[in-house]
């Protein structure tokens, strides 16, 4: 019995591949955006101050988007980090009241390195949503490790404290 090669389907598949490639060539922008990766970073610490100190704990969501420059400038790789602390809950040390953190969507642009410390300030207030009149501020220091090929965060921790900047 003679075997017949499935020429038709192969040719069709080949044509589909070529045409798909052509379509991609036509429609794709010069370089497609690289999808960000998301990491959940354990975050904890205390913001001391009046009217009461507030203890925070939870998991911060940090999205990392790799930025590659293929232009003639060939800048070193960088990452855009976007932070969401809304799942880090605060509890008042005197009253036991709940505190909410704002600033969701704050982003920073950082050169990509294997290990980076990113310090960020954030507002918080008593209640389950941000309240303007009673808003206070804290500072969270992220120690993040990165995959240098993808920009993804491989591990990290976050420590929360009261700001101590000089005016």
């Amino acid at each position, binding site marked *: 019995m003679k075997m017949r090669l499935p020429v038709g389907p192969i040719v069709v598949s080949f044509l589909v591949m070529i045409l798909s490639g052509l379509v991609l060539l*036509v*429609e794709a*922008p*010069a*370089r*497609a*955006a*690289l999808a*960000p990766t998301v990491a959940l970073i354990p975050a904890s610490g205390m913001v001391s101050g009046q009217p009461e100190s507030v203890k925070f704990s939870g998991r911060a969501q940090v999205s990392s*988007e790799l*930025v*590659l*420059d*293929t*232009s003639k*400038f060939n*800048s070193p790789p*960088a990452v*855009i980090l*976007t932070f969401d602390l809304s799942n880090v809950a605060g509890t008042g040390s005197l009253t036991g009241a709940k505190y909410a953190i*704002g*600033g*969701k*969507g*704050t*982003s*920073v*642009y*950082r*050169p990509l390195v294997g290990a980076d410390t*990113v*310090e*960020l*300030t*954030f*507002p918080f*207030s008593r209640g389950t949503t*941000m309240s*303007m009149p009673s*808003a*206070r*501020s804290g*500072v969270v220091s992220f120690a993040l490790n990165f995959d240098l090929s993808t920009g993804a965060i491989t591990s990290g921790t976050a420590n929360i404290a009261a*700001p101590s*900047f*000089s*005016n």
Partner: protein
Amino acid sequence: MLFLPEKSSKRRIREAENARRNRFEIIKALADGQISRRDLFKWGLFTAGGLLLWKHGLNPFISSAYADSSIPTGLPRSPLFGVQPFTQPMPRFDVLPRKPNPFDLAVLNPTPTKEANTTQQLLNPALEGVTPGDMGPIEGRPPGPIWAHQRFDTMPPQIAVEISTEGAKANQVYDPGVPSSLNSGIDSTQPFPPRFHPNLPDQGPLALWTFNGTLPPKLLVGRYGEGILLRHHNKLPFDVTQKGGFGRHTLSTHEHNGHHGAENDGFTGAYFFPGEFYDYHYPIVLAGINSINTGATDPRAGSPNGSGGINKVPGDWHETMSTHWFHDHMFSFTAQNVYKGDAGMFNIYSALDRGNEAINDGVNLRLPSGTAKDFGNLDYDVNLMLADKAWDANGQLAFDIFDTEDGFIADIMTVNLVYRPFFEVERRKYRFRILNAAVSRFFKISLSDASPMIQIANDGNLLPSPVVITQTDQLGIAERYDVVIDFSRYSIGQTVSMVNLLAHEDGRLPSSTLSLSQALAGNSSDPCVGKFLEFRVVRDPAQPDISQVPSVLIPNPDLSAIPVSRTRTFVFGDSADQTTNDPVTSFRGPWGIGTDGGDKLNADFGRVSAAPKFGTREIWTLQNDGGGWDHPIHIHFEEGQILKRNGSASNVPAWEKGRKDVYRLHPDGSVTLTMQFRDFGGMFMEHCHNTMHEDNAMLLRWEIDDGGTPFLRPLPTPIPKPQGVTFEPPTEVLKNI
């Protein structure tokens, strides 16, 4: 542009100064018309893409001939002549006089006309292309019905404001709109010199070109339903070579982001010459005047009536705008002219945002402002114009047009056009209307003690809800962020500063976001990082602070019932092509915009790239096709709403959920937005507001057919000359527009 470290060797500084001088000579020859960009290409100083080649003694990024490192040569720091930061008060803006009855000859002579006033005058032969005896029109607006003021008969202007652009001189009539005690002690009866600091040299009349030729920058005050006729006189030198090395003496003033007819938009090709004026008619109407609240029955769509009440106006109150600015938009010279000082701000008052914190009528939001006047109190409502500047060894403003690829970054931080000032405040809430008026620099602002601020507006539009922040997002060029700061948390005698957290190494995009402690440490190689404005808490307020920041400000217009008539995609990037060769309208540069899958094209204001139909709504996606740049894209005419960032609605932060007119495209990023096209017609623009990118061809023209006809009738392109504006057909109309 990168600046040399402060401790650079004398030899390195001398070499950099020589490079700057060489570049200045070329810039001057180019600006004077002695050479052309084509000559630069021919001589091999520019690449075909419009880039300055890496030649020693010319390009600031080439390594030193003497150094063995790869550190760019850079430029010498701007000399400070021993001046220290925070040693001068920050001047409030200079409020432009408003005169009623614009049709009274005693107010405006000649009286304004619907079509351009083509009364002839003898031209100065120093103007380019003019021979002795030539005549030309007194108004530079393109003549005829197409460029006639829309709605001029039904909404005639009620207020006249007359301004000029001219060389620097002392200000003899400074009106800060507040007493000296609220202006950090500045005595406004004394002449205000054209200096960035009292101990820095005066700017010469060719170095600094501002509105009325003076400092501080100008503030235009308006209110809804009260049209303004802004007569802008061009008093710049007739001789195009008289410019201090950069700038262009032709002007087109964009009211950013006015909802006006295109003839008043400051179209990049509708520029006017020295000796001419241009009448801009700003009706100041709420978008939707044809379709929403046409009977003017809703008090939220209203304007302060001067005596505590509301004049109701037609249109959608959700479209109320508050903080605009106006600046030059001269084709391919916007960066130079704006940098040279041609920029002001425009506060628009409404029943909702009336600039009076006491009137409690159920509509007024009572934001921090003051109480003495019915509207427009500036006591606690402060305009801040941020811009980085550089100057030469003589202290004269300096610029470098060769930074076409990346952008122009300077080394001196200014607020309201003075060097790192202080501002005295009372222990109460203030509103700050912050404008990024830089050429290419982004800012990110925090208070030096990380205290919370409340962001209430973005791009001059009050947000649906205020957002508590400790640091702003990036302020792209031309973006406005209105924030409220409550100084009651401080004691008298305390200071707190605004701090810039964003470092640049060049004008392509920020190189790094610094933490507050890093920015305060003073170690950044970018001289504009760190404290730039010091607040000094000097007293308790004389009256209790009764201002408010309500939890609901202005909800977005609900567009869900309005069908989307079309989607478009615009790709912003480099390596663009030019398909036209018109000597006036067409420009070649490294940048361009691709429309709906087409090639990226260099700017040509004679080309029509899109033509939304009158009265429709569309969805536009703006795409940055590179990882090496950040592009703040400005779409003229009507505010949009961001639907998605990078393809997802969840990526849109709270402070971008209002209405906007500048859309920052992060590297490789995209923004999807929706906007409507209504009320007025004509030719508008879309461009990168990194004005070096804009000037080097990242700009396109789009049109609204004002007749509402089903087919576009492309408008003829204005070709301005001193002898009068002529018209030519569009050089190109893209397919499927």
